[in-house]
């Protein structure tokens, strides 16, 4: 496992921005949980809590105009890439000011203004799309890369295989970034594969496969930076596997059979000891780059920012029902089956 000790190239400023974005994700998702518990948020909510370092470390290794695809657990990714929080939260609430006008919801956040091409509720569904975005960048020689996020569960799906192979033969600048949190809902990656590391599959496609500590944002950032460099210089794709953990259940409000336990309590606790936000805070303090007070101010600032976003979202009206029939096509056609 790569853990990067030499991080001289990441400035304190950048590290603080990393911390800010991780905090944004954490607070955003904590508020989502809370608002959902109050009965105000429809649909299912899969939080990014625990994955913040993996997400932000990767997102901050690319530019705003680089492409990104997410998956069902992707509240955090547009935040990592710099999206405005208000429209994201409004989207979770299905409101008119949602980033997708309330049509997408939690699993389909898309924000083209920051290169976020969308997310897929179908596991592995957006992986081929990221290959195409990379191919397109290459054909248009615009120097962009495509950052493709997915979970360990997706690595057993056919689209993963076809996509990695295509990206390899086409040498697309795609970074396949697997957030391996050890489980697909209740199903352990240990049961789902007869191997330990998803990164080992890279060899079957002729691309580098790198394992990184997903709780260590600087390690993630370094590994992804290298993969991005490879991509931009025409050397093709990389598979990055970040070992991480989700601190919450698969989705909020999900019910399992009474007494069914798929994660040992000790395992959960062990990982909680490796909270990515605490880890970076500790590091910053150790380095002497920030004070406790400055960190607290940062968190307060972020909390306030999220609070504004939540309020913006709650204040946003529901979309007009007739909006359901808009934006299906770029060149609209009569919609059939609209019952009178």
């Amino acid at each position, binding site marked *: 496992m790569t853990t990067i000790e030499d991080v001289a190239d990441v400035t304190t400023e950048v590290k603080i921005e990393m911390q800010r974005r991780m905090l944004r994700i954490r607070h955003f998702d904590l508020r989502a949980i809370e608002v959902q518990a109050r009965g105000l948020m*429809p*649909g*299912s909510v899969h939080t990014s809590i625990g994955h913040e370092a993996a997400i932000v470390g990767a997102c901050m290794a690319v530019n705003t105009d680089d492409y990104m695809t997410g998956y069902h657990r992707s509240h955090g990714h547009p935040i990592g890439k710099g999206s405005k929080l208000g429209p994201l939260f409004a*989207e979770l609430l*299905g*409101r008119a000011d*949602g980033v*997708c006008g*309330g*049509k*997408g*919801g*939690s*699993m*389909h956040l898309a924000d083209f203004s920051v290169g976020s091409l969308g997310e*897929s*509720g*179908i*596991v*592995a*569904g957006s992986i081929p799309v990221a290959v195409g975005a990379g191919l397109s960048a290459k054909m248009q020689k615009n120097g962009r890369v495509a950052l493709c996020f997915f979970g360990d*569960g*997706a690595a*057993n*799906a*056919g689209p993963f295989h076809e996509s990695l192979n295509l990206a390899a033969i086409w040498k697309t600048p795609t970074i396949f970034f697997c957030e391996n949190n050890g489980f*697909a*809902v*209740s*199903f352990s990656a240990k*049961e*789902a*594969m007869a191997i330990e590391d998803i990164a080992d599959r890279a060899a079957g496609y002729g691309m580098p496969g790198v394992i990184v500590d997903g709780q260590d944002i600087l390690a993630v950032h370094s590994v992804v930076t290298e993969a991005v460099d490879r991509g931009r210089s025409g050397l093709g794709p990389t598979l990055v596997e970040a070992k991480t953990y989700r601190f919450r259940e698969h989705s909020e409000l*999900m*019910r*399992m*059979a009474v007494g*069914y336990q*798929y994660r040992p309590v000790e395992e959960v606790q062990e990982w909680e000891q490796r909270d990515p936000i605490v880890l970076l805070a500790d590091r910053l303090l150790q380095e002497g780059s920030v004070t406790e007070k400055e960190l607290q101010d940062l968190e307060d600032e972020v909390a306030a920012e999220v609070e504004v976003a939540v309020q913006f979202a709650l204040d946003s009206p*529901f*979309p*007009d*029902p*007739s*909006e*359901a*029939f808009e934006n*299906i096509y770029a060149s609209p056609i009569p*919609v*059939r*089956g*609209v*019952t*009178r």
Partner: protein
Amino acid sequence: MSTVRTSYLDANLGAIASEMHRDPSVFFMGQDLRAGVFGNFPVDEFHADRVRSLPISETGFLGAAIGAAMTGMRPIVDMTFSNLLYSAMDQIVNQAAKLRYMSNGQARVPLVILASLYYGGNQAAHHADRPISLFTNSPGLKIVAPTTPDDVRGLTLTAIREDDPVIIFRDSNVQGVREEISAEARTIPFGLADVKREGTDVTIVGIANGVRLGMRAATQLETEGVSVEVVDPRSLVPLDVDSILRSVQKTGRVVVVDPSPLTCSFASELVATIAQEAFGSLKAAPERVTGADVPTPFSSPLEHSTLPNVDRVVAAVRRVVA
């Protein structure tokens, strides 16, 4: 006759469990099955081999179920969300549906596929499709869409005992429905429609939760003096054309209610069949109350405007009897 009170979902899972007790070749696979995410199945009553949780490999495990079915086992696969059927489409449509035919009857494929229709609950476009007609237009499959606890139990028993591939579409809007049903389970043959309510003025044929919308509309219309007959085809392939025609011949008017998008829906099939076979009996233009031809939006006001509801059914009936 003693009865039990049971929900639709429990009746479905209960039928599976009872068949597994009866026949050792039956086994059950699904994602997070052992965790009970999609209903409480009595996992512990069976050897772990027979209740399998699955990795995310829809093509692989659906195909594996086909191979097992062809070689002496009777697999049941819960695909959970109907949208995930697309990920196994080739195996379902090119393999399961065709292997018997291509081998001229050498293969038998006793396979049951469960697929839930989870619309109307803010699941958004990747989890809320109603792709029934994609499969009814793919010959070689049998397809049922039960709407009551009793029906789902009886049709599940039949499905498991059939030597053919069967898809059971479970409408999530009926999965929670509880009903008093006979304690003794009985199989319900495929191809037998059920008149859920008798009436004389107009026939409502309902697909999936369309049956419940039809029943509610019927109750409301009764107060206006309109007598509605509600027919539930229950099995779509094979289809009990005769019973449906018989009702339409009696009432002369028909509204079909189907949650799927309109174009090429099963509602369209029924209206076409009725227009072709019972033309002389029709006293008014048939109507379809279906989903709109749009992907399913997330937000409630948007989603609801794309789906059939009781008011729309009532309005259609009023037009038809006007």
